[in-house]
């Protein structure tokens, strides 16, 4: 689609990047051996390999863990068939999921109609829907990736009226493209009122460009912070995106939708990552930015790194392979995921910590729970620190173990409550956890609260 642009360095090299710090970290405290030794004592070792089979790993990471019987079925069909089934994601959804979701008005009404509904109720509906889909969705990898992209393109419900717009963002941006085309997902996101409003592009005009969306589009959504762009590029992208706003006129048919206001667009010439954008481009400027950034090699690197950290941890060997798969497939998510799912790393690498959402869904699935996904469960997620759509910053909930392994108490309390059927709206159909994980014991609360269950 576009020739990759050489990175420009108009400014001096930018500060110490996270990556250069990681690279230099081992040596940096060498001058103070006692402190370095003390730190080493606190290095965070991962637990010993759990002995999980590749099929179990795939169920837990390319989904949210199995329901009773799933692991046996996966072992029966074998790893490759499981990978194909996960990638195809074409199983029909269960009727009960459709029934439960039909009650969530936030998914079925547009933002303007929703504004008659109390905000708290709309958010509750969205959070319920996310939990139900992860728990009951017949295509686990699609659900996993929907969560991944919702983090990647995070929109904070707590800002302004974003809550009312988030349902459409979920339905039109994240879910349709979760296993599809990355560039199309970004195009949809650029046309999502939730994103445009969250990152203030509705207040970006030719007189005073607002850099917020432009910066995060480059830094978080596409190129990555070490993707070779400069502050100058951020400002040029902001000019390209000026005039894209949310229709606020009451009588407009497009009210609440993203529209282009040519009067507020800066129509001068621009240069983005070395590409000249001629003057007079109008609304085509945004498309030009889109075509420059979506399939840029830096975007491939950034996405590969993020996907790997979520699925296997760091892996220099796989990194190159995943980048290649992304670029060769023109950003097809399935093709990008395939080398990860087929890798030995996902099967044999060290365990990854379950985030609170992973933990809750995995527990519900392992116990074959009947749940309404409602406020009682959501409260547990809140106490654990991961209520859906409530991460305020645009980078999405953290992934790293160090962020989450800071207190176990809410996890234990959740484990105890769910195992004792003490969560209103949720009842477990406890069968045999040993079907789900080989380490599943007889004491359900203990199993869900165990160190082993926190990892996947």
């Amino acid at each position, binding site marked *: 689609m576009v020739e990759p642009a050489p990175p420009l360095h108009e*400014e*001096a090299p*930018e*500060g*110490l*990047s996270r990556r250069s*710090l990681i690279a230099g970290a*081992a040596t*940096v*405290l060498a*001058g*103070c*051996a*006692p*402190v370095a030794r*003390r*730190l080493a*004592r*606190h290095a*965070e*070792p*991962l*637990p010993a390999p759990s002995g999980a089979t590749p099929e179990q790993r795939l169920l837990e990471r390319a989904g949210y863990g199995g329901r009773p019987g799933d692991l046996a079925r996966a072992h029966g069909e074998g790893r490759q068939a499981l990978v194909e089934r996960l990638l195809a994601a074409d199983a029909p959804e269960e009727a009960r999921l459709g029934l439960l979701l039909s009650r969530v008005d936030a998914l079925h009404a547009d933002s303007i109609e929703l504004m008659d509904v109390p905000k708290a109720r709309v958010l509750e509906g969205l959070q319920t829907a996310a939990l139900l889909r992860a728990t009951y969705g017949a295509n686990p990898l699609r659900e996993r990736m929907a969560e991944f992209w919702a983090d990647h393109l995070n929109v904070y419900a707590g800002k302004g009226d974003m809550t009312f717009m988030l349902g459409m963002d979920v339905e039109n941006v994240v879910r349709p493209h979760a296993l599809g085309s990355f560039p199309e997902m970004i195009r949809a996101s650029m046309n999502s009122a939730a994103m445009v409003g969250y990152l*203030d592009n509705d*207040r*970006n005009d030719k*007189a*005073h*460009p*607002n*850099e*917020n969306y432009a*910066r995060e589009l480059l*830094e978080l959504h596409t190129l990555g*912070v070490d993707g070779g762009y400069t*502050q100058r590029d951020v400002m040029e992208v902001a000019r390209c995106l000026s005039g894209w706003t949310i229709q606020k006129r009451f009588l407009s048919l497009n009210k609440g939708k993203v529209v282009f206001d040519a009067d507020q667009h800066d129509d001068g010439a621009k240069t983005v990552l070395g590409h000249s954008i001629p003057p007079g481009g109008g609304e085509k400027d945004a498309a030009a930015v889109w075509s420059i950034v979506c399939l840029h090699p830096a975007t491939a690197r950034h996405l590969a790194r993020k996907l790997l950290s979520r699925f296997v941890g760091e892996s220099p060997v796989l990194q190159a392979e995943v980048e290649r798969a992304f670029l060769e497939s023109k950003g097809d998510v399935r093709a990008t995921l395939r080398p990860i799912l087929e890798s030995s790393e996902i099967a044999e690498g060290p365990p990854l*910590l379950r985030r609170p959402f992973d933990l809750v869904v995995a527990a519900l699935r392992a116990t074959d729970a009947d749940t309404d996904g409602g406020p009682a469960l959501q409260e547990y997620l809140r*106490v*654990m*620190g991961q209520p859906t759509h409530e991460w305020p*910053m645009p980078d999405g909930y953290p992934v790293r*173990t*160090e*962020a*989450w*392994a*800071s*207190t*176990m*108490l809410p996890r*234990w*309390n959740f484990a*105890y*409550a769910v195992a004792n059927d003490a969560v209103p709206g949720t009842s477990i159909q406890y069968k045999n956890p040993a079907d789900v994980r080989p380490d599943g014991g007889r004491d359900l609360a*203990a199993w869900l*609260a*165990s*160190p082993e269950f*926190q*990892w996947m």
Partner: protein
Amino acid sequence: MDVKTCEEMAALAPSTSATVVTRRSVLLGGALGLVGWMTARSALADVSLSKTPTRPIVHVFLRGGADGLNMVVPTHEKAYFDARPTLAVKRSLPLGEGFGLHSALAPLLPLWEDGKMAIVHAVGSEDRSRSHFEAMAAMERGGANGGWLARYLAATEPKDPSPLRAIAHGDTLPEMLRGGPPALALRSLDEFRLAGDASFRATLDRMYADGRDAVRVAGRQTLATLDALQALDPKAYRPRHGAKYPESDLAGGLKQVAMLLRAGVGLEAACLDHGVWDTHVGQDGFHPRLMAELSGALAAFATDLGPELDGVTIVVMSEFGRRVGENAGLGTDHGRAAPAFLVGGGVRGGFHGPWPGLADLDPVGDLRVGTDSRTVLASALRLKDPSTVFPGVREGLAGLYV
């Protein structure tokens, strides 16, 4: 803490643990074990009696990039008013030297006038990406991998550290506390209670008894904290000296910190987040509210501590400041430098650090960084050799602390 060299830092650790009962004895003795520990180890008592070098640090991070120019207003700079036709603060509380305090920060004025608050101009990191996440990472890491506070806590770790030695008010651990001794993320002391019966507790004790992975370490620390908190009654805590904490997450967090300091459970570091200060749009709509929350909470905390404020180091900073010129949305975009506020802990009140001025902005239009955040932190930690915690940093900010 007066630590001179790296070797001294390492040697220092065991001496601070003299009065601490071991975790085992706490676990075995429960509340009984704790009584001795608490009386022997009140951080505030320690400080006021000058018996141990421990001086607790309370760090408030203004997330999102606080617009320092509208907090500590450069009233002497015409360029400020020119660049902000709508957003410039026209009336502020005079601080001297050509600066004024935003009226929403008025609760801090008594601390300033008493010489208990310092403002360091134009603090920032060397990160120039203007990305929230890079700038926070640069500041929280302080030039090495892992958090600067984690390195400090590792360097000064006693043999039997309190499970409540380092806490973060929240659900996740900030980067500055990562990669060192275990630290606890904790939102509400009130709700820090384990469900279930004694046998569930016994099961957890057994399952988490061994192992050095992150989950097992956090699990043991959580269990020890449950025991430590059993003897406390957060609801019964009464602030002193007439302090009234406003209703806010930050104020609630600081109140809990005050309670833990008083309880003498060995708290040495507390991290609190505040924000989001990312005022790209309609800044005047919420920037004053954020400032009021911050100042109200800090003022109540300082009042509560009373004379003991001198033994507690409070540091307030943000990952960056904001652009000098206002934008189309009556807000400001990401900049480079913002003032740091330091309260208590023997700080020398008044302005510190150079004011880079608005006549010579950086090429993007931002106030330049006048003081590296690491030198401020090195001073706050009383590090004689800052490079033990901040590699390559030779000196703190001279004269910041008595």
